[in-house]
């Protein structure tokens, strides 16, 4: 049986176990389920879990381990004479696997009997020709053919053992759990322990992934700094990578572009978003709010590449023709201003939606208190609501900022890819994210600093956004403590 069908069988057994366990709990309770420690469902789950979990675990480990073990065994059997060099061993191993798969196909199609497959040799040209007619070409190399036959038989044995072992475990677990289904058995506690374990596992997956990503960034960055001095990376003012060698990989121009574009985006999005939020939460009637808020949130659903197109086709030329050229500030269609403005539009729903929630969280009693003292609605907003909501709004702005720093597509299409440092917002510049994409597109040689620099840039970016997110979280949490 293949692992897939073993798994299906185990799950069917488990489902059966659930039904039978529940029924058995009912029968041992002799009609009065209040005599049971747990509800019958828990006895059912208990049987199902003991049937499925141990055998599925064994199945998983076996499936993961089998290729490694078999490869090592076969690899040891291949005579040294057949292996030319270190790289050749890998090629031979894949040839062995390919041959084994081909033999398997031939047997499945009925071209070979199992006995013929076992006694296959390169000398048996009649048989090989018959296979070749059916488009199955086997290697003439006797060592490989021998190894492929071994490979097949080991795998077949392993598969049989696995089938037997996991089904036995499933049945054993089933029987054991059924035997323990008695009124005083604490099925609920056992099941809930399993569930807690499962919940912990799920949260560990997220954490482990984060750790894994950070580690990979750190290791590759370490490799980069072995090849390129860190001072030149962090403090270099020139970004001229060339894969031929002699690149200068200073990140300052990229950092400048990133910060400049983000700043413009925030200068645009924070006031607009905040005022929109104030309108929605304090002035708009419920009907207007019901229409306006979803419309603004649609902005958040537009893919950033579409914003990029908007920047490239509409905003860029508009800014160039109406502002930059008449003012003599530049002729570039892509500019920091373009990318910043379009990114600002993208961020409006972030700022407004978060601020709206935060402003709404300010208790109505504070507004009543202020209005009850004879202050106007606008005085109430300025003097009571906004100060009370300020920490949360700052948190929202920081989240928007970390979003802006990590944005790529709008920058590629809006600000171009030229790494330079200038104060003029109508010139093309570029950001860290764009250059990461640039360095990793095309043929990659993961031993050259020009490729590895992407990881160092990624790590820098990660540290920046992490710091912003942590700051935002700390501020937002402090705010929450104040009201709940």
């Amino acid at each position, binding site marked *: 049986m293949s692992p897939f069908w073993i798994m299906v069988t185990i799950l069917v057994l488990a489902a059966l176990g659930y039904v039978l366990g529940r029924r058995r709990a009912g029968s041992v309770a002799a009609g009065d389920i209040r005599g049971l420690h747990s509800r019958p469902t828990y006895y059912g789950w208990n049987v199902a879990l003991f049937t499925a979990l141990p055998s599925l675990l064994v199945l998983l480990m076996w499936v993961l381990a089998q290729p490694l073990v078999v490869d090592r065994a076969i690899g040891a059997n291949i005579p040294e004479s057949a292996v030319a060099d270190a790289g050749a061993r890998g090629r031979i191993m894949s040839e062995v696997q390919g041959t084994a798969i081909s033999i398997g196909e031939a047997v499945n199609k009925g071209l070979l009997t199992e006995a013929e497959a076992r006694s296959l040799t390169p000398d048996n040209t009649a048989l090989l020709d018959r296979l070749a007619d059916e488009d199955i070409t086997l290697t003439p190399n006797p060592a490989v053919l021998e190894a492929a036959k071994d490979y097949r038989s080991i795998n077949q044995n392993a598969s049989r053992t696995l089938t037997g072992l996991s089904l036995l475990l499933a049945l054993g677990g089933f029987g054991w759990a059924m035997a323990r289904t008695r009124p005083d058995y604490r099925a609920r506690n056992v099941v809930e322990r399993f569930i807690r374990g499962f919940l912990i596992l799920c949260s560990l997956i997220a954490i482990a992934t984060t750790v894994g990503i950070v580690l990979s960034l750190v290791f590759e960055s370490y490799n980069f700094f072995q090849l390129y001095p860190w001072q030149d990376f962090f403090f270099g003012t020139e970004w001229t990578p060339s894969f031929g060698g002699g690149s200068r990989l200073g990140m300052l121009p990229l950092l400048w572009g990133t910060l400049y574009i983000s700043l413009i985006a925030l200068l645009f999005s924070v006031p607009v978003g905040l005022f929109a939020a104030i309108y929605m939460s304090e002035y708009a009637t*419920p009907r207007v709010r019901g229409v306006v808020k979803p419309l603004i949130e649609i902005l958040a659903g537009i893919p950033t590449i579409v914003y990029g197109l908007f920047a490239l086709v509409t905003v860029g030329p508009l800014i160039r023709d109406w502002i930059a050229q008449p003012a003599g500030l530049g002729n570039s269609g892509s500019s920091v201003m373009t990318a910043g403005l379009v990114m600002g539009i993208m961020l409006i729903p972030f700022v407004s939606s978060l601020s709206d929630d935060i402003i709404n969280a300010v208790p109505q*009693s504070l507004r009543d*208190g202020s209005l009850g003292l*004879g202050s*106007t609605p606008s005085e109430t907003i300025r*003097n*009571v609501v906004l100060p009370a909501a300020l920490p949360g709004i700052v948190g929202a702005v920081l989240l928007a900022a970390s979003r802006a720093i990590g944005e790529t597509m709008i920058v590629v299409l809006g600000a171009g890819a030229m790494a330079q440092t200038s104060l003029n917002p109508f010139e093309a510049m570029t950001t860290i994210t764009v250059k990461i994409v640039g360095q990793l597109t095309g043929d990659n040689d993961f031993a050259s600093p020009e490729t590895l620099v992407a990881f160092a840039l990624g790590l820098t970016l990660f540290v920046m956004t992490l710091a912003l997110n942590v700051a935002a979280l700390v501020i937002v949490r402090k705010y929450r403590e104040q009201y709940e």
Partner: protein
Amino acid sequence: MNDMRLAERTVDTKGKPIKFSCRNVQVFYGDKHAIKDVDVDLEDKTVTAFIGPSGCGKSTFLRCLNRMNDTIDVARVDGKLMLDGEDIYDRRVDPVQLRARVGMVFQKPNPFPKSIYDNVAYGPRIHGLARNKAELDGIVEKALRGAALWNEVKDRLGESGTGLSGGQQQRLCIARAVATSPEVLLMDEPCSALDPIATSQVEDLIDQLREDFSVVIVTHSMQQAARVSQKTAFFHLGNLVEYGTTDDIFTRPQDPRTESYISGKIG
């Protein structure tokens, strides 16, 4: 019930000018008719108590007196409410100016998340009652003394108002309302969130406030109404059932509903 204090109170219930004159007041929340045909005259420099079972409309009526119902979208008020002979629901009256004259203290203490000083100074600053810092300091001190809070907070005026205890917070809110120098002070169950000691402090305070303001207080506690008020109005199912001196309401109720309520049979 404190009969001694009741007896004292009866002396000064006569001959006060009318502050609020309400005729034929109706309030609707959407389709619900919350207040029906209420006619009442509230006297100046008097504590008037609104009593009645939950949901009888006493808080709703209180909120009509400074147009706080305007902040609720579905609420609609009909009828005449005259403050010193002026219709407060007239188109020309700005609710903001009205609320400066008719202050309000709410059921739950709601100090602003600002310093104690800034909480009290909030109203005077908005209405420009002080020309300089010294005057503002004076107003704040007077209001805090008036709310019997000065001695407890005079050394920590810069600390946050939200850090005070529940009773102190409520007295801070009263000080905040007093600092604005309103003519009428509305109190919506000001003691319901307070312990007995804080309650008695606030009640003493209400009694003193009567010298300068007309006070209207909504309360669940009949004992409290008897202790602090000179006039009492009994509301039931949106109707004003009976209105008279506190003494009369509690000792010689005219309406059978009033009698059952104060003797604890309904509500």
